[in-house]
């Protein structure tokens, strides 16, 4: 420990501080952006009174949250009730640690990679952290001791573990093309981003288009956003798992959702959209400027993806519960599995990214058609899932994987 260079420690701390604050500021900007964009999409104004263009609205909201009474209802399970928001917020915050948000900057003769920790199991770390987010929701729901909350928690746990599967399977194709034999760092997000290079046709979303769609959809489900927000469906469950929460505790749930969105977008950009690469622009300028430009490129890509998040929210209606499960298990999962088989086979036999890309799309199309055909043929007049008993099936299956 003694021969740890001081510079490394200082630069790490600075990076952590910058990224943590960027996340929090990002949350505030996202809240503002969501309200303005939704206003724009619904042909109304949205908040525009506090500050220029309503930019200070999130700060006003934050102040309001802080000064509200921190209510703890009598019927709740107090320790878990207090713990739950933190258990949701912490995974959302620490997930960003392995995301490379740019190339490296050279300062005072030291090269600083723009990433907090480049660990060799980066992508597994992301998967592990995302899978922990569900605890905050489930425990908050259970501790609230309220039937609406409990229903939200049950839905959320089943949904999360169903879609996690797709999340994990969809990236395997990406890993296969990134890996070289004997290399042991292919699970590092930095290596994945570097391997995509500057050219559009090396970016993974073109090569693994079905997997990209599956991963993105599963990411939406993991963040509990519309059209997957069954855990808090206002029309059915009041507010779902956070019905009983108020004041800053509610604000923490709220912030965690937006942080998950930001981290999720950053991961998608790293895995599928070429990370900080953009047609060689990231190499312009000296050792300092190229780092800053690469960070800017990454930032812009993430911001665009976040806009898509908002866009989707105001475009698609919420799924019904059985539709959600059907979609996850009968469409997304087969697509992700097909992507693994096709990518592996075609990459071994032809070794051409173009063939893999075309093969993936064709195979996914065939699989989706087959599934849809089977569903139409078997369409019995079956009612929607009525009770909790049947809902256990998909989640019980999930543990097997």
């Amino acid at each position, binding site marked *: 420990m003694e021969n740890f260079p001081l510079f490394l420690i200082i630069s790490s701390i600075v990076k952590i501080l910058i990224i943590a604050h960027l996340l929090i500021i990002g949350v505030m900007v996202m809240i503002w952006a969501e309200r303005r964009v939704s206003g724009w999409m619904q042909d109304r104004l949205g908040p525009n009174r506090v500050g220029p263009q309503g930019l200070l609205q999130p700060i006003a909201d934050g102040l309001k949250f802080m000064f509200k009474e921190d209510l703890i209802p009598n019927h709740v399970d107090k320790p878990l009730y207090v713990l739950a928001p933190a258990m949701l917020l912490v995974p959302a915050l620490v997930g960003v640690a392995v995301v490379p948000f740019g190339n490296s900057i050279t300062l005072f003769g030291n090269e600083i990679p723009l990433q907090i920790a480049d660990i060799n199991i980066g992508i*597994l*770390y992301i998967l592990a952290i995302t899978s922990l987010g569900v605890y905050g929701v489930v*425990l908050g729901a259970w501790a609230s001791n309220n039937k609406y909350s409990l229903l939200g928690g049950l839905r959320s*746990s089943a949904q999360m573990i169903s879609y996690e599967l797709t999340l994990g399977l969809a990236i395997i194709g990406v890993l296969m093309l990134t890996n070289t034999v004997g290399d042991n760092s292919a699970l590092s997000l930095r290596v994945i981003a570097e391997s995509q290079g500057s050219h559009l046709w090396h970016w993974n979303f073109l090569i693994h288009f079905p997997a990209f769609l599956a991963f993105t959809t599963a990411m939406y489900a993991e963040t509990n956003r519309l059209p997957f927000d069954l855990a808090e469906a206002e029309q059915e469950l009041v507010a779902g798992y956070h019905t009983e929460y108020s004041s800053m505790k509610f604000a923490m749930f709220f912030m965690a959702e937006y942080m998950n969105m930001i981290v999720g977008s950053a991961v998608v950009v790293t895995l599928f959209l070429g990370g900080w690469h953009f047609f060689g622009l990231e190499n312009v300028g000296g050792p300092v400027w190229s780092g800053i430009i690469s960070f800017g490129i990454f930032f812009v890509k993430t911001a665009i993806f976040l806009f898509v998040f908002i866009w989707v929210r105001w475009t698609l209606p919420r799924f019904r519960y059985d539709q959600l499960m059907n979609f996850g298990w009968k469409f997304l999962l087969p697509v992700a599995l097909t992507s693994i088989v096709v990518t592996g086979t075609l990459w071994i036999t032809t070794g051409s990214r173009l063939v893999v890309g075309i093969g993936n799309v064709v195979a996914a199309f065939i699989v989706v058609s087959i599934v849809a055909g089977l569903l139409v043929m078997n369409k019995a007049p079956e009612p929607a899932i009525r009770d909790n008993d*049947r809902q256990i099936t998909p989640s019980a299956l999930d543990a097997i994987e």
Partner: protein
Amino acid sequence: MNPEQILFYLFGAVSLIGAIAVISFRHPIYSALSLIVTFFAQAGLFVLLGAHFVAAVQVIVYAGAIMVLFLFVIMLLNLGTLSAKGAISGKLKGFAVILGILLAIEGVYIAANAISDPPDASAEAATESVNTTTYTIGELLFNEYLLPFEVTSLILLAALIGVIVLVKRESQAEN
């Protein structure tokens, strides 16, 4: 004390406390939470042992899937009210604890003495160089242990079918 020792005692203590909490909490949900804490501490121990991949899989599989399933079932059955009357009598409990202490002594004795020649410095150096990576594990899994790997998939398939049969019969019986 070097950092590794400090971390070992930290994680070890956390996992032991978590394990004891699992069997002493009345309510299953608190037991499940304590078990998650234990799993986390064990993941930390795996990292200390250089098994990064296993540590990540531990969190993904145990904390991410298995324990969510436990919580799901506890919430689904709403077991809170049932747990109180489930305790066994004090005498039997004392007997069980004595048996447990005996087993612990035996286990610790074996663990401390059974290794006839403890790995010396050269073996330690060898472990440093191997530093098991995901690549090493994958290579072993798909070459040397290919048959067990396939058998595992059969086990999973059997479990899958078993669960479907169990739940399917229930819903038919209801109709």
